[in-house]
């Protein structure tokens, strides 16, 4: 089967019940103080972009999901992992 290169983008962020002082600081100590009162919440995270060779989009996503779980790329005690996007590299 022909393999293609895919780009999987994902974000790791603290679970809602684990405080995120980075997000809180951006919202309370910067945005709210500069008049952006319409912003009610900011959460920070870590962004990863992974280039991967796979048969199709689903497989690329599956491998990334599997390795992130197996190697604890995200810490399931405190973090959630969300795959944002899978695109085929031109």
């Amino acid at each position, binding site marked *: 089967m022909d393999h293609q290169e895919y780009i999987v983008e994902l974000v790791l962020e603290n679970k809602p019940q684990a405080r995120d002082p980075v997000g809180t600081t951006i919202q309370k100590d910067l945005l709210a103080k500069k008049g952006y009162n319409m912003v009610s919440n900011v959460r920070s995270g870590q962004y990863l972009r992974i280039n991967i060779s796979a048969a199709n989009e689903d497989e690329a996503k599956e491998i990334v999901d599997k390795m992130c779980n197996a*190697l604890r790329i995200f810490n399931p*005690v405190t973090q959630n992992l969300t795959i944002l996007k899978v695109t085929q590299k031109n």
Partner: protein
Amino acid sequence: MTIKIAVIQFPGSNCDLDTLHVLNNVISNGIEAELIWHNHFKEAQFDGVVLPGGFSFGDYLRSGIIAAHSPALDEARIMLKDGKPIIGICNGFQILAEAQFLPGALLRNDSLKFICKWVNIKVENNKTAFTSKMNIGDVLAIPIAHGEGRYYTDKLKELEENNQIVFRYSTENGELTEQANPNGSLESIAGVCNLEQNCLGLMPHPERASEPILSPKQTMHGRLFFESMVEFIKRRVS
């Protein structure tokens, strides 16, 4: 009897030599401590192991996560099962939490600042391999130096029921106040152990609190950790 202790060096460890000095020159008492590069560690040669503080692998991705996959931790896992004593100090604690030897995780300090100062911790469990020389309720003077030390667990009740909370940040009088909690740790938790109590992780640095000359109060409470370990090993092999 010679007690062989391994102090594991990861790329980025920086409290390894302090720990080695305390074990060999301050505690001594039959201890022969050795620095071991993480890829070379063979557990069978040792009675106990220390994962020292520092910034293993540059704290990339998360503090401790890369080191948690080192072959040293596979070896240490055998020791864990055998009931040998394992202590993780600061970054060592982060590694043990990421490797799931210990429950919970260490998150970025609430203040977002790296905090380096002397604090007080209260002893909650003196049955572990590293706390037998302490009494429950004792308050120890000990320094912290970390950016990611905010303890978090989603199994708090379980930890309390199993007596796995070993230290909490407190005032000099042993009161648990918000002000005495330097990093925003859940329930002021400073250190936890595994169910079997032979593995301890804590953010404060006992190796920096083992000689009066280093302490603002001329204390040496840090020695108790290592003296307890020696006692534990002697009892274990006899």
